[in-house]
């Protein structure tokens, strides 16, 4: 944590890292409400290796953003982390104070929010916001700040002239890219992205995804990328987690999840996409909607919408099974080894 700006510029090479960068263990997060507590994230465990690109998909209300905010320790009341640990570079983030967290944020881990429109301050220039983040980490040389700000902006393909621009003078795509540039200021080891492209149209979206992937390969940081659009992550992520009702439904190498999805929910998600290629086929989507997290069905949480539901699904709590390289929470895969209850 005592690195200077220059150190952190060179520390971003993949060779310098090994093993799990982030270990999330049995992380639970709940919302404390008058009508009772709602468990939005229910004992989620996973690792992210250095330089890895992990995607998390699921419908709205499945807990994916809460999980992300829990990891980044950004949950605000009524939400809070109610159990488990988040080990990042050896330290358990769940136990850190705000002061300790502020050392890690931006420098080792940064977060790119869904809507850059709201995440950027509308009344100061982009450059001023960059310099705020840099100065917060003890760099005060004006030249150094200006140089680094221009550098990261150039990395995302924006003319450094725009350091003088205010957010409203930039297009949606440029705003989102300058958020990503800001996340790169200290070349962090982990960048957490919450639906960064959902406000953009397809052309800007594809451009941004390619840019993130290029930067990630070039600088070697790990990415956790949350989206509701499963078609978007196919070509960019190494591993993919499908979340349903606060739990992992399926988690494995992206290619495997796409080519042979094991959980009926993953199958449904993948089949809900019309394509512009090939013959036109009628689709059905997934009937019904995700359960109310305050009033979960007994047994499998997906059972009420599942086309392959069996009697036992309605009564048994389903553990995660390991099948090949994939973890899946479904009784159809109960021949697999049990990962967790």
């Amino acid at each position, binding site marked *: 944590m005592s690195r200077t700006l220059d150190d952190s510029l060179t520390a971003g090479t993949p060779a310098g890292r090994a093993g799990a960068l982030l270990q999330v263990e049995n992380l639970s997060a709940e919302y404390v409400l008058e009508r009772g507590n709602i468990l939005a994230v229910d004992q989620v465990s996973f690792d992210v290796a250095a330089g890895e690109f992990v995607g998390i998909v699921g*419908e709205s209300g499945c807990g994916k953003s809460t999980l992300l905010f829990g990891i980044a320790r950004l949950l605000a009341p009524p939400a809070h982390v109610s159990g488990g640990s988040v080990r990042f570079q050896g330290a358990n983030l769940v136990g850190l104070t705000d002061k300790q967290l502020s050392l890690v944020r931006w420098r080792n881990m940064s977060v790119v929010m869904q809507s850059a429109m709201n995440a950027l301050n509308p009344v100061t220039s982009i450059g001023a916001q960059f310099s705020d983040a840099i100065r917060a980490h003890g760099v005060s040389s004006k030249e150094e700040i200006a140089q680094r700000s221009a550098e990261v902006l150039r990395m995302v393909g924006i003319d450094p002239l725009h350091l003088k621009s205010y957010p409203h003078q930039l297009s949606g*795509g440029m705003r989102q890219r300058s958020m990503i540039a800001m996340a790169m200021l200290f070349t962090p080891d982990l960048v957490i992205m919450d639906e960064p492209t959902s406000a953009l149209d*397809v*052309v800007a979206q*594809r451009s941004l995804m390619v840019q993130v992937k290029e930067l990630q390969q070039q600088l070697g940081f790990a990415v956790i990328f949350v989206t509701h659009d499963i078609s978007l992550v196919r070509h960019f992520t190494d591993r993919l987690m499908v979340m349903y009702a606060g739990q992992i439904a399926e988690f494995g190498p992206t290619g495997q999840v796409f080519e042979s999805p094991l959980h009926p929910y993953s199958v449904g998600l993948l089949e809900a996409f019309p*394509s*512009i*290629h090939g013959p036109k086929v009628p*689709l059905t989507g997934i009937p019904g*909607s995700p359960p109310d997290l305050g009033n979960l069905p007994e047994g499998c949480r997906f059972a009420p919408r599942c086309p392959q539901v069996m009697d036992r699904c309605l009564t048994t709590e389903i553990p995660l099974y390991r099948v090949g390289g994939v973890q899946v929470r479904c009784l159809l895969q109960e021949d697999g080894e049990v990962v967790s209850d």
Partner: protein
Amino acid sequence: MTDQQTAPQYEVLTDAPLLQTSKLTRHFRIGGGLFSRKTLHAVDDVSLTIGSREIVALAGESGSGKSTVARLLARIYAPTSGEIHFEGKRLSDIKGRADVLRYRSDVPMVFQDPFASINPVFRVSHGIMRSLKLHRPDLSKQEQLAEAQRAFEVVGLTPADEVLHRYPHELSGGQRQRVGFAQALSMRPKLILADEPVSMLDVSIRIGLLNLMARLRDEQGVSILYITHDIASARYVADRLVVMYAGQVAESGPMEDVLASPRHPYTQLLLSAVPDPRAELKVGAHTDHGEPPRVIDPTPGCRFRWRCPLAIDICHSVTPELSELAPGHHAACHVAQSGAEVKAF
């Protein structure tokens, strides 16, 4: 009734399509100040037709003017110039309150955000009953209720009498958007203007609504203008595709024809960027960041020329007109019109 009394005033085109716009234009003055005379060309010279029992997809990026077109058709905005004909009648001739109400019930709109478009403090029956009271005063209260129930059943909100008594917060996003379609449907419309009706919904629910739109066309004979930036969903339901760029129509034609052989470089860019897990990722066009076009006081010339790898001299001085390159398939591109093969992205 009312339109028969006033009919002679209208310039009636025989065999007219359900809705037709000719050179439809809407400009906005922007910037304060007495001397600032900047004009934003939101929609310029848009000519499109919508037939009966037809779903037309209007696609384009944010800022391309597609929502402005919908608002012009819904009479929320008045056109700067150009004309809209509905069933052969000029829209600007529809003036009396009864006629305007009649048009609004013939051409209702469904909005993008199902969370903002329903009043949260009333039961969902409130909105639909209010519009029935306004648009179908000939029906008794009982008949209006029956009509509301019919509309709810058609869109799959069953049991209708129970759902009608719920509050919006008791419904999911997909169900709320169905309420929007039910309200439109209760007016027995001819054309529904649907402005990104599924873009805020989860993928699993999207398909249900797209299927609903196709069913409304097939079973109720309703036409739909489906505004979207999602070409894959447009292909799933629409018969024809109109691609807009910077306030103008870049290309239009039968859906499958346009997808199979897009003629305009912008259409090609748009199609190449559609995320498709089943297709290989095509990188190469990614140098295009999707920057919005310049539509404030645009100079003559093709508005896509700044982003177009094929731009030739004429593109910088002459605005290309939409012309027919194959039966029913139009594109506004100098290169395509010269007969050369267009392969930009």
